[in-house]
């Protein structure tokens, strides 16, 4: 029986973005990580090139986390007060990239200074040779004060800096351009805003092939469908030739998954939900694996066991 050939021919592709600069390239990273490049839908490799391997970034914070449940915290208990040591631990746990989230500079969370942030960044750059993502605290005024200094301190390392929003993009775009960093453009689960912010940023002269897009991640049970359908629609647009949607995508799985009740409820609080020790890990792993299906290129994760599950999944499907 003749089976019809249903392979899709896509006209577009996701751009490749390289994070991290080695010594030859003016930085000090051991190696660079390149993401993106897909010419087909995830895992439909008969339609075309699947692009670069999905990268896992592990989060480091500049202040100790307040509400991490024990099954998560125990993996980092001895390093939560020392971002450099924390980054080393993440490298041991198999991170492809380190994501430094500067929550500590937020006025309500510690109000650390720009100098504090710069020192943290420098200590991490020295402690590990993995490429670095540096994300602000999402208070516009503080970020506009701190991120330029952080960007300058890491100049030459070709980091990925977060992020540009529709209401606040000029400062971070300018510093990324000046210091040679890649840029995260952010939208709040809104594909139209996501596209618009890419247009605004490229209108300032920022190159499209140094942009990574971010839509606020919804974890399993907490809005995953919304960001799944946006990722999917954006990926199809990229493959159909929409230039401004053709950037790689980053998602924030660790933070969102471990906020869930399902990750936090103890065995006594929720005995019908299965073992507390395993639950958060699976909540994180399943959120990640689901979003991989929607078309993502970098996944920010927390738990080392979830990381190894997800990396094994990526291995099997590529």
């Amino acid at each position, binding site marked *: 029986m003749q089976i019809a050939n249903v392979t899709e*021919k896509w006209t577009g592709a996701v751009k490749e973005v390289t994070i991290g600069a080695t010594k030859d390239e003016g930085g000090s990273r051991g190696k660079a990580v390149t993401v993106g490049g897909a010419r087909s839908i995830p895992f439909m490799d008969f339609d075309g090139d699947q692009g670069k391997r999905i990268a896992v970034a592990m989060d480091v914070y500049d202040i100790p986390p307040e509400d991490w449940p024990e099954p998560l915290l125990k993996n980092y208990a001895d390093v939560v007060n020392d971002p450099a040591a924390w980054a080393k631990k993440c490298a041991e746990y198999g991170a492809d990239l380190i994501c430094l989230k500067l929550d500590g500079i937020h006025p309500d969370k510690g109000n650390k200074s720009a100098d504090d942030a710069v020192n943290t960044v420098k200590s991490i750059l020295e402690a590990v040779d993995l490429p670095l993502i540096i994300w602000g605290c999402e208070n516009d005024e503080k970020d506009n004060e701190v991120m330029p200094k952080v960007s300058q301190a890491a100049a030459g390392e070709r980091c990925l800096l977060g992020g540009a929003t529709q209401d606040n993009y000029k400062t971070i775009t300018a510093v990324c351009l000046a210091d040679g960093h890649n840029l995260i453009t952010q939208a709040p689960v809104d*594909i*139209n*805003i996501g*596209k*618009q912010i890419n*247009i*605004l940023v490229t209108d300032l002269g920022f190159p499209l092939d140094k942009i990574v897009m971010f839509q606020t991640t919804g974890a399993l049970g907490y809005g995953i469908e919304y960001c799944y359908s946006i990722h999917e*629609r*954006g990926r199809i*647009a990229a493959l159909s030739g*929409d*230039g*401004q*949607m053709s950037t790689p995508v980053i998602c924030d799985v660790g933070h969102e998954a471990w906020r869930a009740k399902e990750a936090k409820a103890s065995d006594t609080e929720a005995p019908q939900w299965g073992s507390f020790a395993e639950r958060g890990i699976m909540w994180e792993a399943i959120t990640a694996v689901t979003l991989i299906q929607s078309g993502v290129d970098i996944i920010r994760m927390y738990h080392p066991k979830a990381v190894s599950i997800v990396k094994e999944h990526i291995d099997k499907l590529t």
Partner: protein
Amino acid sequence: MITIAERINGMFLDVKRAIKEKDASVIHKLAKEQTEAGATYLDINVGTAAADQLDAMRWLVEATQEAVNTPIALDSQKLDVIKAGLEVVKNNVMINSAQGDPETLDTYMQLAKQHNAALLCLTMNKEGIPQNVDTRIEIAATIAAKAMEHDIDMDKIFIDPILFTITVDQKQPAYMLEVFNQIKLISDPPPHITVGLSNLSQGTKEKSLISRTFLTMAVAAGMDTALMDVLDKDLMDAAICAEMILNKQIYSDSFLKAARQ
């Protein structure tokens, strides 16, 4: 939307004069302006007045290529004029156009394949231009079948069901919409569907309004290409907007700009 920019045509006085006086600067300007306005192809038509049509075609193609890399649509009903254009064309190329007789299609499709050219085919034949939907569809089906026979991708085939001026037959724009819908069903994937948009409003008032109103109706019915005045900003905006409304382009506040980039 695939746009075939219509302005480099010897029917226009400035182009006619440029051909006569070999003034390439006129052609350079039109080529650049139309490219900047978002043209996918630049149509090149020597018009009827040129003394030596083959020479005029070669000259127009070369002048255009001096200015831009935009794909070129060689527009003539005469095979030798098309061939003259093919001799000198370096940019990607479309042959505009072939009629729908089987033998004619064989000739043109072989030529298209040889030059890796796209091919625009009219749904008319030796018996003339059809006056109804069914005959247009029959000819369109013949064109699609010939393309498959010659192993040409549907992506390179453009079918034009021939749009008349509205004052000649006012029933016929409505037929066109039905024709577009049916051509979409001819094959999977279907060929491209195109019209000479300016034909509709020849000799009328409100040319721009008539053109862009029909264009949005046509896009909704499945037309994805048009030979048109890309320098008419309202017309281009209407094309972009129609496609956005049909979810062919993700909306963003700068959607009109985004589609032109």
